[in-house]
């Protein structure tokens, strides 16, 4: 028997959700509308003149090979960060789940990096890998790898991927650990009695049962890589060398704040916004269908 609460007065429920709606309207709908609107104008920095240009800002974007390359680097960056951060976190979570002694200590240590701001995470790695000063770059040279992310675009991309993934591992670790602990012991014990080895047990029982967590994390990690890593890029490579690490969200900032091209920047954020909407729709469709709560 479900208990239902019924509001007698008609206005009260609306009043109660009003703050949330107001926040959404002020902080989401209004700026989104503004972005949408300014994407159709060309404007000077001080806002004296504003000229309606229709789709010109969008046309320019899609005629710009650099912008199209940004889609590619964003995709590579996003997928690599998600894959790296999730696989390492899963490995660590499985290991931590088996630890018998000092469990709390291990977990705390593994969660630490999450407290580091993305910009700092980037700077730490940037410093470690600096071709002139970095200790990791020095080791790499020792084993014959010529490391210079100032010149080599692939190395620069690899660097920001590692930095972004490193920071996200802790978050994934927490969720995976919670997921692992909610898997009924009886299932695993039953499989063990049927003589399934640890590897078999993991892939046949644990991994499928973790799938809601895994999917949730995939979406969260992609969103993180697509949008939250701006400060990391800004603090380290600033999109270079050439434009190899210039991911979409960084380009929005660069065009708008550095270049004061508000129309072009707004058009880019509209495209990004469309991308988020598509990703969210996919998430909900998929999660609704595949996951049993």
């Amino acid at each position, binding site marked *: 028997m479900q208990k239902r609460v019924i509001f007698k007065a008609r206005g009260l429920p609306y009043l109660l959700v009003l703050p949330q709606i107001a926040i959404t309207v002020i902080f989401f709908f209004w700026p989104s509308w503004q972005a949408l609107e300014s994407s159709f104008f*060309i*404007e*000077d*920095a*001080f*806002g*004296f*003149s504003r*000229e309606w240009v229709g789709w010109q800002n969008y046309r320019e974007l899609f005629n710009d090979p*650099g912008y199209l390359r940004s889609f590619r680097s964003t995709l590579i960056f996003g997928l690599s960060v998600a894959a790296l951060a999730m696989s390492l976190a899963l490995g660590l979570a499985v290991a931590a789940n088996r630890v018998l002694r000092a469990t709390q200590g291990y977990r705390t240590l593994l969660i630490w990096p999450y407290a580091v701001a993305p910009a700092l995470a980037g700077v730490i790695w940037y410093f470690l890998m*600096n*071709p*002139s*000063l970095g200790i990791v770059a020095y080791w790499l040279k020792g084993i014959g790898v010529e490391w*210079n992310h*100032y*010149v*080599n*675009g692939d190395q620069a991309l690899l660097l920001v991927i590692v930095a972004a993934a490193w920071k996200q591992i802790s978050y994934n670790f927490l969720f995976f650990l919670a997921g692992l602990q909610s898997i009924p012991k009886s299932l695993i014990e039953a499989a063990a009695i049927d003589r399934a080895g640890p590897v078999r047990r993991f892939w046949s029982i644990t991994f499928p049962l973790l799938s809601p967590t895994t999917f949730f994390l995939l979406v969260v990690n992609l969103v993180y890589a697509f949008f939250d890593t701006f400060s990391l890029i800004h603090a380290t490579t*600033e*999109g*270079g*060398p*050439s*434009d190899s690490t210039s991911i979409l969200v960084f380009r929005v900032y*660069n*065009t708008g*704040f*550095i*270049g*004061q*091209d508000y129309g072009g920047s707004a058009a880019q954020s509209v495209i990004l916004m469309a991308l988020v909407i598509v990703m969210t729709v996919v998430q909900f469709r998929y999660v609704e269908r595949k996951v049993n709560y």
Partner: protein
Amino acid sequence: MNVKSILTATTIASLAAGAAHAEKAQVQFWHAMGGTLGEITDKFAADFNATSDTCEINSIYKGNYTENMTAAIAAFRAGQHPHIVQVFEVGTATMMAAGDQGAIYPVYKLMEDAGIDFDPSAYLPAVISYYTDTDNNLLSLPFNSSSPVLWYNKTALDAAGVDVPETWDEVHAAAEALKANGVEKPFSFGWQSWTQIENFSAWHDMPMATEENGFAGLGTEFTFNNEAVVNHIQRIAEMGQDGLFGYGGRRGDSRAQFVNGETALWINSSAYYGGFKQDITDFEFGQAMLPVDTDLADAPQNSIIGGATLWVLQGHEQPEYTCAAEFFQYVSEPEQQAYWHQNTGYVPITTAAYELSREQGFYEENPGTDTAIKQLSLNTPTPASKGVRFGNFVQVRDVINEELEAVWSGDKTAREALDAAVERGNALLRKFENANS
């Protein structure tokens, strides 16, 4: 002393302070000088406030150059802008375009209206020519200006048995000798658009764009994909292939290479002087004039500046503007300028400050610290060497960075990269022209 008397005393004190506060005209000054530079800037404001009964300059650090300028523009759009804002040289065209719309109070007019005797000829021509309009009126007050110089590691040069190079051929020869003597990346530079294109062009008296490098109109078009610059960039690319040049990133990122001795010849701003003096302990360093390309010119023309100026925004009360004008006069005085110059490596902006530093014996004690100012005042600036003024220039510099990086990594030849940079740069110029006409 009991609680009551403390309360009374503090109340009276704060009332008195409030009254004094209200009497003085309040001027907001947003700057982008962090660290030691910021401390000196704030000190100037505080010292000025102490001398004036009518003025109070509120010196506020607002982040780096870009952040400071963006903040001021956003504030202007909201009607909450400061009186004085520090803008870096690449933002000049944006500020000037805003000036045409009445957002800017030009410095020459500010001084005139405040009744302050203001003589532009007291300033170094190469410094103020960057910030004057076509009628030679000064629009913003030069504050911190520097110029690129050739920094060299004297210890490494001596060990390799070579002199400080004066031409690009000598740079190449010196780099080879240094390499043979174990210097890993003998030659490098920072701020590549500024040092290797803008200044390389001015130094050899070649325009990098039409319309007097943009001074004469918004219709300017880039021409730096000319034979001379292409050959120059190609030469550096070849030095890179031979291990004689090691690229170390945008802006001043390659500074570490010079400081730890990996690089012995480094072209970048003279304003690194203050930091080098502190950080470099294990070798002798010095600064020399930029190398000359003898195929292009027998003698150099003059170098151009980088740095920032102080712009005054419209929309405040006259007493506050008078106050700003007095502050400008104060920071331009030889004492302040000489202090600034000697402690930072920026050039003194007035001839008097230069003279004063010389009289104080600063250059004898610190040889080479007058390199930048000598370069700037080498000759009377020509239309090709008085500076550059381009719209969307911050983005254009990014385009140049991107294209040059493609050359250093071997993805493009100098010709391909500079052609692409000019084409992409021109598109940005046209966009600026459309938005501001």
